[in-house]
C-alpha cells in the first residue's frame, strides 16, 4: 500500500495543489515554501501521536491569498496498491475494485470544526467518526529539530521493553537468574553501607536528642541508609554511552548524535512494525543535519533500504537528492501567492530518458535541483568564463539562487526534460557546430538543428557543399535561428566561445595572451582550453564588464529575467 496522491485545497501555503508521490519520495524546495506543511497534512490524517484535539483547525491553517482568506480546508489523500489483509479487513467497503482508497479531512473556518471521510473513490465518500483506521495504517514521523538526549529519555523504556518481550525462554530464564543474583548483591551492598562507621555515627547526635525528648524513643533510632535500592532503580539510571576500542567515551558531536538518533528510531520502528498486521509510512524531515556529505548520502540510502514501508523524506541536501531518480522527487515552488508542486510532483515523464542518463546523475551537481534557474553550457571553459562574467556584470549567482552547469557532452535534451519537469527555469548556450554526414557529401547545421529540435521546429536544410559556422553568420542563417531560439532561452555561439570572445573583446584579449591578431589569439586559446581560459580571465577581469550588451552576455541576462518573473 502506498500514498500515491495528495490534494490540498486552502491549507496553509497551498491554495489548490495536486501532488503525486512515488514509493520512496523526496520533497525539496526553498525554505518556507511549505515542505513541513505538506507533511503536516499527511500527519493530520495518519499520525497516531496527534490527538483529536491536535487535529482541530485553527485560524492559521486557512490559506491566505491576494483576495482574502480561504473559508475551507480540504486535504485528500489517495492510497493505492492495497494488498495488505489488515487494511482490507478494517476498511471493508471503502476499498475500491482497483485496490484504492481515499481519505479526506475538511475544516471550516466559520466554526473551526473538522470532518473526516473515507471512500473507494472521490465521488463516493462516507463520513466517519474518527480515524479508526490508525491501528492498522499510520505514519511515523521524525522532525528536523532532534534532540538525542530527550529522545533517549523517552524511548529508553520502550526499547528495553521491546527487547524484553523478544527474549527466548532460555534467555528469559538466564536474565531472571541474573536478576536474582543482582538483588541479593544489592542487599549485601545495603548492609555494608549501613555498617560504615561514619554513616552510623552521622545520626548519633540526633538519636541522643530524641531520647531526651520522649520516653517512647528509648528503643527508636534513626539512621541513614541506602533506601533499599532495587534493581529497577539501576535500570532506570541507565545512560546511553559509547564504546571505542573497548573504552567508554562520550557519545559524539551533533552529526554523530543525529546518526545515532536516526538509527535508534529506525531500529525501534522496524521492531514495532508488525508487517503482517499494519502498514506504516515513514516521514523524515531533513535527515542530513550536521552530517558530512558522504554520510548524508549513506544515511539516505540506509533509510530507504532499511525502513519497511513507503518512506517520504524532505531535504535540503544535494547529496541525498542524488539518490533519488527524478520521478521520485517533489519540488515545491512558489507560484502566484501559493505553493505548488512542479509537474504535480513525481512524474514519470522523465523516466524513459532517465535510464539512459542515470550514470551521468552523479556528475550532475545535485545543487541544480535546488536552484531557481540554471544556465547550461558546453564545458569547463564556458563554466569558468561565465562565472567570471557574471561577477563582472554584477549578477550575484548565489543571491539569485542561480547555477551554471556544464553538460559536458551533448545531452542537453535530458537535462532540459528534467529541469522542465521540476519547473526550474533554464537558459543554454551551445556551439554552432557544423558536421559532415558520414558516407555522403552532405553537411548539416548540427548545433542549430540541435537547438531547433528542442523547440519542436524543423531542422535547416542540408548543404551539399562544405560550409563553416562563420558562413552561417555571414549568410544570415545564424541570425534566423537565433531569432527563433533566443526568446526561449536558447543561445548559439557564432562559432565557439574562444572565437566569440576574441571578436567581442579583441584588443584586450590579444594584449592579454600576447598575440597580434585575432586568428592567432583564437588558436592560442583553443590550444589548451580551460587552462588558458583561466589565465586569460585573470588578466582581463577588469574589462569583462564591457561585454554587458554583447551576444555573450545575453544568456545570463535572459536567465535573470526569467527567474524574476
Amino acid at each position, binding site marked *: 500500500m502506498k500514498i500515491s496522491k495528495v490534494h490540498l485545497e486552502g491549507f496553509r501555503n497551498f491554495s489548490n495543489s495536486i501532488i503525486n508521490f512515488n514509493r520512496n519520495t523526496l520533497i525539496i524546495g526553498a525554505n518556507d515554501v511549505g515542505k513541513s506543511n505538506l507533511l503536516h497534512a499527511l500527519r493530520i490524517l495518519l499520525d497516531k501521536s496527534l490527538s483529536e484535539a491536535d487535529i482541530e483547525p485553527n485560524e492559521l491553517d486557512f490559506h491566505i491569498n491576494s483576495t482574502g482568506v480561504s473559508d475551507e480546508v480540504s486535504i485528500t489523500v489517495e492510497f493505492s496498491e492495497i494488498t495488505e*489483509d*489488515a*487494511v*482490507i*479487513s*478494517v476498511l*471493508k*467497503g*471503502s*476499498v*475500491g*475494485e482497483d*485496490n484504492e482508497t481515499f481519505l479526506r479531512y475538511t475544516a471550516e473556518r466559520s466554526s473551526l470544526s473538522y470532518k473526516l471521510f473515507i471512500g*473507494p473513490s472521490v465521488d*463516493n465518500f462516507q*463520513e*466517519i*467518526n*474518527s480515524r479508526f483506521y490508525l*491501528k*492498522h495504517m499510520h505514519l511515523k514521523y521524525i522532525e528536523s529539530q532532534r534532540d538525542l538526549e530527550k529522545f533517549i529519555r523517552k524511548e529508553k523504556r520502550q526499547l528495553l521493553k521491546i527487547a524484553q518481550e523478544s527474549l527466548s525462554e532460555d534467555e528469559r530464564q538466564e536474565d531472571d537468574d541474573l536478576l536474582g543474583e543482582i538483588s541479593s548483591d544489592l542487599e549485601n551492598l545495603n548492609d555494608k553501607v549501613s555498617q560504615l562507621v561514619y554513616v552510623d555515627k552521622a545520626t548519633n547526635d540526633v538519636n541522643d536528642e530524641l531520647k531526651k525528648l520522649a520516653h517512647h524513643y528509648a528503643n527508636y533510632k534513626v539512621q541513614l541508609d541506602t533506601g533499599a535500592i532495587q534493581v529497577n532503580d539501576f535500570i532506570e539510571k541507565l545512560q546511553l554511552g559509547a564504546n571505542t576500542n573497548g573504552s567508554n567515551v562520550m557519545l559524539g558531536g551533533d552529526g554523530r548524535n543525529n546518526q545515532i538518533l536516526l538509527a535508534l528510531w529506525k531500529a525501534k520502528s522496524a521492531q514495532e512494525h508488525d508487517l*503482517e*498486521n499494519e502498514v506504516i509510512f515513514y516521514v523524515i524531515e531533513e535527515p542530513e543535519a550536521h552530517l558530512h556529505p558522504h554520510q548524508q548520502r549513506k544515511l539516505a540510502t540506509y533509510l530507504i533500504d532499511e525502513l519497511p514501508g513507503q518512506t517520504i523524506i524532505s531535504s535540503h541536501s544535494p547529496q541525498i537528492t542524488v539518490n533519488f531518480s527524478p520521478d521520485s522527487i517533489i519540488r515545491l515552488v512558489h507560484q502566484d501567492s501559493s505553493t505548488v508542486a512542479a509537474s504535480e510532483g513525481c512524474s514519470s515523464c522523465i523516466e524513459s530518458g532517465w535510464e539512459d542518463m542515470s550514470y551521468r546523475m552523479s556528475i550532475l551537481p545535485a545543487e541544480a535541483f535546488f536552484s531557481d534557474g540554471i544556465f547550461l553550457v558546453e564545458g569547463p571553459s564556458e563554466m569558468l568564463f561565465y562565472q567570471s562574467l557574471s561577477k563582472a556584470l554584477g549578477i550575484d549567482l548565489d543571491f539569485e539562487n542561480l547555477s551554471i552547469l556544464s553538460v559536458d557532452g551533448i545531452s542537453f535534451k535530458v537535462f532540459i526534460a528534467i529541469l522542465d519537469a521540476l519547473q526550474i527555469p533554464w537558459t543554454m548556450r551551445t556551439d554552432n557546430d557544423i558536421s559532415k554526414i558520414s558516407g555522403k557529401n552532405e553537411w548539416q547545421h548540427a548545433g542549430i538543428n540541435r537547438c531547433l529540435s528542442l523547440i519542436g521546429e524543423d531542422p535547416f536544410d542540408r548543404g551539399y557543399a562544405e560550409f563553416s559556422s562563420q558562413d552561417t553568420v555571414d549568410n544570415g542563417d545564424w541570425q534566423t535561428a537565433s531569432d527563433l531560439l533566443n526568446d526561449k532561452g536558447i543561445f548559439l555561439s557564432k562559432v565557439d566561445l574562444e572565437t566569440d570572445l576574441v571578436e567581442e573583446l579583441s584588443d584586450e584579449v590579444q594584449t592579454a595572451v600576447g598575440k597580434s591578431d585575432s586568428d592567432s589569439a583564437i588558436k592560442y586559446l583553443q590550444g589548451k582550453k580551460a587552462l588558458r581560459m583561466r589565465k586569460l580571465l585573470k588578466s582581463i577581469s577588469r574589462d569583462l564588464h564591457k561585454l554587458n550588451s554583447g551576444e555573450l552576455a545575453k544568456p545570463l541576462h535572459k536567465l535573470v529575467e526569467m527567474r524574476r518573473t
Partner: protein
Amino acid sequence: MTTFNPTPQQQAAIDCEDSIVITACPGSGKTTVMKEKIRGVTPNLPSHKGVIAITFTKKASGELKKRCKENAHDTKLSFFGTIDSFCLKELILPFLGRIWDGKPSDCKIVKKLDSHQQLYLSGKYNSPTCDELSSDAGFKALYDAGILWMSSFAALSLFILSNSVSARRYIRARYSHVFIDEYQDSSQAQHELFIKIKELGLIATAVGDIDQSIYQFRGSQPEFLLALTKDKANFQHFELDLNHRCHPSIVNYASRVLDAAYKLIVHDDDIYVFRRLIRGNLKNAAEHISPWIDDWIEKNTITYASDIAILAKKEISLREFSKGLTHNYRLYIDTPLNDIGTECADVFSDLLSYKFGAVATAQDVIEKYFFQLPERNMPDLRKQLKAIRSETTLEDFIDKSNGLLELIGFDDFEKENNAVRLIWSQDTLIKLFKPIALDEVQLMTLHKSKGLEFKIVFHLDMEEWSFPHRIPGDNWDDVNYPSLAEDTNLHYVGITRAELCCILIRTSLRRNAQGNYGNSRPSYFLGLPQLEGLYQ
C-alpha cells in the same frame, strides 16, 4: 460454571482443523462444541481477523457470543449473528453499490413484499436463489426503488461475491473460518453462499440435525446438510449422537417416533414418558394439571416453574390452555408487532423490551440499530433511550420512540404505533417484553421451543386433526397428512426438549375448525406401533 469435559466424540470434532460437517442429535452439546472450536481458533488470529459465526436466531447468536467471550476471551473481529444480518452488514451494505450503483444504506429493508412490491418481480419466490435473482430483472428494479427484501439477502450476497473483487478480497482478508449452526434449515441460496465462502479459502464448519428440520414450509431443505455429509472430499463428517440432556427413556421414545427400527438404549430405571387422556377441553386440562405443578414446586421436585414447558403445535391451543392455568405463566406468541414484520416493528419491539426489562442495557439497543450513526450523537442517543425507559404513559412512550425511529430513517409508523397501543393494553403481551421470571411456566409452540431445554415438558395437541396436520380427503378413509415429515420432526423436537420427563396430553374434547367441540380421537402419533412399551 461447570467445567466442560468433552466426550471423545466431541473432542474429535473440536480438534479437527479442516472443514467439517457435524450432525448432532438433541442434547449432544453441539453449541458447546462450536463455542470450543471458536475459542480454539481465535487466539491464533491476528487482531484484524475473526471468524464468522452464524446461528438461526438473534437470541442464539447473543448466547453464542456471550459464551465465546467468557473469561474475557478475545474473539477479535469475529462476526456473531444470523445469516441475514451477516449478508446485510458484511456484503450488501458495503459492496452492493459497486455492482448496482446507488447507496444500499439508503434502502428500506422489508421482511415481506407487499402486493405493490410483489409486482416488480416476474415470479413468486419463497427464498430466491442466485440464479433466480440473476434472471429476474425485478430484483434490481426493487433495489433501484429503494427496497431490499430480506429473503433475497443470501442470493444477493452470492451475487456480490461472484461479481466484486473487493468483496471477495474483504471476506478473505477479514475472516479465517465460517461456522453455521442449524444447517438443516438452510435454503438453497444460503447453502450456495456457504459453499462460495468456503471456496474463498475459509475453513468451514456446518452443524445441524436432519431430524430437526422444521422449516421446510419456508423453503429450507435438509438435503443440503445431507449433501455436505456426502461430500467426503471437502468435508469430514463428525457425528454427535449422544443425548446428554434427556433421560434415556425420552431418547428412546423420541427416536422411535422417527425410526421404527431405532435400537433402544438400555437403562435400569423407570420410563419417564407419559401419555394422559384428560376429560374435557384444553382449559380443563390446564385446570387438571395446575395442581401437579404446584405440588412439584412445593416438594422441590422442580426448583423453578420456568423449568416447566407447555408445548403445542398451534398457538391457539396454548391460548385456550392458558385460560385454565392457575400458575403464573408466560405465553410466547407473536405480538401484533411481530405480525407486521417490518424492521421498524422489530426496533419498536426492542424498545419495548428495553423499557420492560427483557433487554438489559441501552448499549444492546444501540449496537443493534444505531451502529451507523457518528460517535458524537451517542450521548444524546443514550439520553433519549433512558428517557423512553422511564416513560410511564403510553402516548409519551410512543412519541419518544417515534423520535428515535426517525433518527434511524423510518418515517411511517402509524401501523406500528397502533400495534404498540394494542400490546400495552394486554398484560399477557407486555409480559413478553419483561425479563424471564423464574416463577412463570413457559408456554410456546413446538417451533419456538427449538434449541431450548426444560426439566419437564407437557406436549399438547395429541388429538387426530390437531397434530399432525391433516386435511380432509375424498372420503372418510382417505387419510392425508400433507406435512407429515416435518410434523414428525416437530414432534421429535418437542419431546427432546425434556430433560427429566415428558407428558403427552390428549384432551377428550377437541375444538374443530368451526369452533365447535366434539369428541377427539387419538393422534396418529399415538398410534405408532413401535412406541408400544416405551411410555407409561
